């Protein structure tokens, strides 16, 4: 069992959820999303995000608009769609359940003592 692989799988699983969460509050373009993900140490390299964003967009969870930038190529600003909003709400619910589940399992003694 490759520990790196397992870690990567864990991260990839929650990456979608995190991207949608970042876009919940404000629209953002790729570099901004990347900054947040990087500062949270969720991703190390940027490449991962591009196929993911396109996939989310194709699933109509995200939409984008073009915006001019000063001294660079135009930027794609991503925005949650209403389907994306619902999707995110559902993910939030199941994420909370998961958190509790994981806590219960990984700290069983604490729970028993409580």
């Amino acid at each position, binding site marked *: 069992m490759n520990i790196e692989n397992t870690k990567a799988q864990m991260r990839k699983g929650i990456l979608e959820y995190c991207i949608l969460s970042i876009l919940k509050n404000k629209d953002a373009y790729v570099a901004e999303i990347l900054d947040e993900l990087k500062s949270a140490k969720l991703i190390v390299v940027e490449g991962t995000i*591009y196929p993911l964003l*396109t996939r989310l967009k194709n699933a109509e969870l995200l939409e984008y608009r073009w915006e001019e930038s000063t001294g660079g190529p135009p*930027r794609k600003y991503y925005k949650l769609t209403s389907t994306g909003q619902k999707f995110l709400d559902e993910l939030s619910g199941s994420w909370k359940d998961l958190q509790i589940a994981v806590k219960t399992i990984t700290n069983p003694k604490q729970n028993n003592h409580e």
Partner: protein
Amino acid sequence: MNKTLDINIANQIFHIDENAYKVLKNYLDAIKSYLANENSRDEIIQDIESRIAELFIERMISDKQVITSEDVKEIIKIMGEPQDYDISEDEDTQQTHHKQYVDKKLYRDKENSYISGVSAGLGHYLGIDVVWVRLLWILFTIFSTGWFILIYVLLWILVPEARTTAEKLAMKGEPINLSNIEKKIKEGYDNVSEKIKDVDVKKHSKQAQSNISSFFNQVEKIAIKIGEVLIKIIGFFLLVFSGLGLISLLFTALGLGGVGLFGNIDLIESGIIRLDGLIYSGVPTWLAIIATFIAVAIPLILVFIFSLKMLFSNLKRINRTFIISIVALWILSIATLIFIGVNSSLRERVSGEIVNTNSLNLTPQDTLFIKMRGNLDYTVTPFKHNEEKITYDKNDNKILYDSNVDVKFNHSSDQVAYIRVSKWTYAFDENKARNQASLLTYNYEIDANQILLDSYLLSPPELVDNYLGIDIDIYVPEDLKIKLNENTKDFLENYFHPIESENKFDQIYVLNDNKLSCSSCKINDNTGNPIEQ
């Protein structure tokens, strides 16, 4: 010192040095190969490129002008190795991705070629050393007294060359995954550096191989050029052929439509168009014409488009839906024509007739006189036009007027003259045909030695699409003299003998061997002398 190139990423111009360019290109190619199964690959690549452009711009601050290999390497560090681009939907994909063996495909291997790489490609495909393949070619060519070369040339033309890394891997049956692609790219580098560094025996033999190979490369290039020119020429002829075909078809169709508007000018008699089967099928003529038009036009249109593509290779791709819909339309029109054909053959399966005979009281001395009789209500002169039209009788009732009347003289077996008038139609069964035939109105009059025959028949207008007519057979003894009015000429089915004579219709005839033989003519015998008969 390093050469620099100008590149355009996401519509931004950058100066990049040559080595950095190679690294960047390989990186992007590797990502492309890695994302080969992704639907929106192009879009993803576009996004990645514009991010790379952004990162370049960030690094181009101060007086730095050129992107170096170090810059590219750092950007690759930021962006990640190609496998980082892989977002698998399920966890197993990561595993299966490496196991994913592709089927071996036959490509020409130009890297190891003497002539065209066919042998090397076959070697990979069959999993045997290329030397054996070449040996087999030579043996087969000798034993087949040379014609095996043809198969070689055919393979050369038909088998594509392995150009991309992915194709090269498929040629060898190695799975297209990143580590293999990277290996290949590395091999490419090693080959190049090897060529620069080492001067050894292997390199010399490689050199010789590449010299031969480059000669055949030239041959191949020339052959491709000739092929291109040939394709252009063929394309040009196809274009002219299909274009003219379409134009003439269009005019024909317009012509038919125009005739349809102005009444019944007979195109069948004019021999231009054979619509007999269609006319009597009970299907509207316009439908038959349109179906015929489409059935002929669509293949011509396809040939036209095809020839345009042959002439101008940069032509825009033709919409698939367009092709599918016109092919569907073509099939529909063919189906319509088949339906019309079947329908008409069913409608005209059998004939039925109503016969009326009348004896003629003639003595051998009499001369039988035949004359056609028109009706001013329907037509000016009693001519036969193969004409069928809906018109009105004296009481203003709709009626079908038809001039399909045939007159024929026959030998009477019992020395008595008589006339047989048959009204006939075609229908699905005989009863119906006979019923229809009984609806036909045809009149004639026997007045002493003279027969007056109507030049037309009348029928209820419902029979307009049916094949119908009147056959008149006049049976005469062998030596009965016959005189014909000139207006019978369109209706007569017997030949004259001689075919042309002076004042043809002033002469007296007798029936001889089913021909109307002129008995009062000055005719030429075989010697050419005029004789009086």
